[in-house]
């Protein structure tokens, strides 16, 4: 109907605005060097120039990097989901002395500038002999205050009655956590998963610091290998940008369904 048509129009407009930078980057990456810097800007390449991609793939072992990033990101994601959901559970369903203080301590970890931690952590990883390993890339990020906070907020919106019903049914804390809280918080968990994955995937400085070989390097380092400061044309740089974003974009598309779906509906009367 009319109202829906209007809604689609609004959505389309918003989508266009949001997506514009990415779409334009995509277009530029497919342009020739001259087109990419032309004025007025060329929005649609006259002819698809794949050279930039080809060059990018030759310049750095991007596929290897992507694989590494995927492994590390997956490990971190799973790790964060586990640790953060456990901690968030404690903060939202357990009543224990000092809860708010411990929670603040958790929160405070988000507030520490990364400059403070990166160097001591480098030494820790070095001591552990984890330089140039997947452990070194992932272990420091296996816990997340951000994730804990986010899940706590989500857990707090679960109806209290469910917890009671489950307890009556003979459910201990851990079972309740596994069979009720986690399934009912799928949107939040999905969001955290995507977030954790991308954060890790997009890391630059830490992987650069703790890896030394192309075998262990991750994708953002690859991106920096593709750009050279004084390049006069945009096309190759954008090819790199698009290239490293493809895997995560795919992930988003695949995970979208899980990400946002209301599940607590019809839980209880009122």
């Amino acid at each position, binding site marked *: 109907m009319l109202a829906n048509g209007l809604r689609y129009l609004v959505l389309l407009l918003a989508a266009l605005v949001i997506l514009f930078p990415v779409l334009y980057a995509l277009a530029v990456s497919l342009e020739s060097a001259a087109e990419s810097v032309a004025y007025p800007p060329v929005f649609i390449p006259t002819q698809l120039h794949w050279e930039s991609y080809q060059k990018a793939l030759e310049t750095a072992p991007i596929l290897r990097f992507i694989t590494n990033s995927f492994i590390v990101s997956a490990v971190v994601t799973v790790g964060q989901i586990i640790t953060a959901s456990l901690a968030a559970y404690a903060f939202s369903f357990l009543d224990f002395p000092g809860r708010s203080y411990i929670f603040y301590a958790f929160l405070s970890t988000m507030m520490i500038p990364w400059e403070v931690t990166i160097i001591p952590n480098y030494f820790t990883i070095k001591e552990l002999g984890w330089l140039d390993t997947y452990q070194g890339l992932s272990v420091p990020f296996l816990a997340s205050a951000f994730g804990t906070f986010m899940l706590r907020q989500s857990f707090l919106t679960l*109806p209290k*009655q*469910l917890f*009671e*019903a*489950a*307890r*009556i*049914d*003979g*459910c*201990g804390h851990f*079972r309740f956590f596994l*069979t*009720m809280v986690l*399934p*009912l918080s799928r949107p939040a968990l999905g969001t955290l998963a995507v977030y954790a994955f991308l954060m890790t995937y997009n890391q630059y400085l830490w992987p650069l610091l703790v890896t030394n070989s192309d075998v262990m390097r991750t994708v953002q380092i690859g991106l920096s290998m593709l750009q050279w400061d004084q390049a006069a044309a945009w096309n190759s740089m954008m090819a790199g940008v698009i290239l490293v974003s493809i895997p995560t974009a795919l992930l988003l598309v695949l995970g979208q369904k899980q990400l946002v779906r209301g*599940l*607590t*509906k*019809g*839980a*209880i*009367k*009122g």
Partner: protein
Amino acid sequence: MAEVRLSNITKMFGMQTAVATMNLTITDGEFMVLVGPSGCGKTTTLRMIAGLEEPTEGDIYIGTRNVTYLEPKDRDIAMVFQNYALYPHMKVFDNLAYSMKLAGVAKQRIREQVDTAAALLGIANLLDRYPRELSGGQQQRVALGRAIVRQPQVFLMDEPLSNLDAKLRVQTRAELIKLHQQLKTTVVYVTHDQVEAMTMGTRIVVMKDGIVQQVGTPAEIYRQPANMFVGAFVGSPPMQFLRGELSGEQDDAFFKSEGFAIPLPVKGDITFDKRNVSLGFRPENLTFCIATENDWAIPCIVEVVENIGGEALVHARTTGGSPLIVKLTDLETIPTPGEQVKVRAAKGNLHLFDMASTLCVATVKVTA
């Protein structure tokens, strides 16, 4: 199967007392019904027995164990929640099966138990749906099913039939009674439905404002209410009261009110002298006498006649202005609104309540 004992239980929500020094022993295998007006503390009592709420004071025993600080899951109870509290992400089958899964019951057996319960409650065809796809009554039945698939020591049920239609309610009520007779499990049952209370309970607890008013069998509660509140609360339409004075002496007393006097053969050791009392009687105790010359009768004017299939309620008003309801089962003699009639007690018990304490001081059996 176990005894449930509440000892000096008090529950406060902030400054609000929900339950006040409650003492109650529910014997093993008993079907105990809690009734009382909305907000009187029924649900709260049930939740304390379940372990969902910690009493502010007092102890709770199940069997011989003091369970006051025990986790619900360690109390071996099952509960039906007033607002269902179904697991929204599980299909009906899984809602029913969940507690058994937790207890590690074999798959095969779970299937059987669930099927039995579902058949019993008429929800067998809904097992594959999510709670949000059910009607109110269907959800309530699932909630009930969730409790009965387990075989706990104690069932706690909070208005488990309130959203069911009459037929289904009668049927489910009968099934629950049968179940109780088979399993002999202790049941604590909250309802606001008198018929349920009367037909199901081996005993009934009447509560008001968090305070227990009377504990007794249905017949006791109905026939010998401990105070005006209980008298008025049980029975529908409720007990009627006429305020007046009691005079005379033992075995030869009179109840005087609004220009008429009724002779009452009161027995027992009570003071009579112009005592302020209320006379309580039930609509079905009364009948009409068209004959105008009868000292025993109360003159009234008929106001409204409600005709429910099979019986009629006649709303009348005494000349003094007090409302009176008469329940007639003989539908041939219904007066019409505006008619002047006389009402007299025909059968059953009349009750005398002290106006100060509201306690019942005497019960008089009437025979027509």
